[in-house]
């Protein structure tokens, strides 16, 4: 699938084919996409544990459910528990120097081993590595983990899978996956084949571009060029908006299939 269409097709899927397992190779594709995501100082903030739902015992599965996410967690055959590694700055000195070695950070931009050793590490990164609870670490960790999760989600869509980020109760799964103490729980990325159509009722409503993005200064909304908008429609990045006319009938059918309230 073309990239723009992948972006356009992604929805939060809330009805999965609960009986259909996801091929392990497709999970690997997702993890690889996450691994290659942009990350500050080449620190891998995102950590994740893949869990097959049917390998969880009944009590653990029940305990994981929040009031809102219970059904999603029950329906999705694969759960990827995501964490922000608050200790990811540790080792950044070596990783930055490696980026110099491989030609990613260059003298053209002022980078050298000595700059990393004498200034960047002791003045900027070491304090962050030593004080992992600082708000700035949390911001970087959440941002970079989010980028990586997003790439995994898009890769899943490209593989024909459905995904949904969901809340989860941390303690029950922690007993199983045993995360290190400095991993901050984020979301569970639910993965499976959609039981609803891939359109899932249509593209979700978003505010107009000029309300979210600005040009030059805040308040000066970024005005989209209608020609570009048409190109994006042709490339299937911008798709038919929700609700598609048959969505309510689809939900009724799904409710009947799974025995859910209407």
């Amino acid at each position: 699938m073309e990239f723009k269409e992948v972006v356009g097709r992604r929805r939060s899927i809330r009805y999965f084919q609960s009986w259909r397992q996801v091929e392990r190779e497709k999970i690997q594709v997702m993890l690889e996409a996450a691994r290659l995501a942009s990350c500050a100082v080449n620190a891998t903030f995102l950590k994740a544990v893949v869990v097959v739902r049917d390998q969880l015992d009944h009590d653990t599965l029940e305990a994981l459910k929040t009031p809102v996410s219970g059904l999603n967690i029950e329906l999705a055959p694969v759960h990827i528990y995501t964490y922000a590694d608050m200790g990811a700055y540790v080792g950044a000195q070596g990783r930055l120097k490696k980026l110099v070695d491989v030609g990613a950070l260059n003298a053209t931009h002022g980078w050298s081993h000595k700059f990393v050793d004498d200034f960047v590490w002791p003045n900027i990164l070491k304090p962050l590595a030593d004080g992992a609870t600082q708000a700035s670490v949390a911001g970087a960790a959440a941002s970079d983990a989010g980028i990586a999760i997003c790439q995994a989600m898009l890769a899943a869509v490209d593989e024909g899978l459905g995904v949904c980020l969901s809340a989860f109760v941390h303690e029950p799964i922690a007993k199983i996956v045993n995360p290190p103490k400095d991993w901050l729980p984020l979301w569970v990325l639910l993965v499976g084949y959609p039981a609803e159509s891939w359109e899932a009722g249509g593209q979700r409503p978003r505010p107009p571009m000029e309300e979210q993005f600005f040009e030059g200064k805040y308040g000066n909304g970024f005005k989209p060029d209608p020609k570009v908008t048409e190109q994006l429609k042709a490339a299937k990045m911008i798709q038919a908006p929700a609700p598609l006319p048959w969505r309510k009938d689809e939900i009724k059918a799904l409710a009947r299939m799974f025995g859910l309230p209407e």
Partner: protein
Amino acid sequence: MSAPDKPLEEYESVQTWYRGLREQSGIDPTQDRSRLDLLREFCMALDLDPDALVAACLLKKEGRETKISVKGRRSMGERIAEFQSRDASADARERARRGNTIRSFLIHNGILLQSGIQI
């Protein structure tokens, strides 16, 4: 506590339910009277009218935002599960429908409930 003492359609919570079914679920509730029959049966079993069923799931305190009561919601969920399993002669799908009708009533009145998969 008291069972319904007027036609169910006159209760505000039932009107809210019907409005929700029409506007959010695309269902005309008047096409299937069995919904109301099941709600009446549940009300009688708990000796509560429909508005009181909703109130039993809420935590209201003077000067504070109304919250969903964790205990009330959990207890109602258990009563629904009990109500659902009561009709032993019905098949699993029909039993699910019994419970889901009550869940639907509460959901459209703002009480988050999930039944889980029932297939």
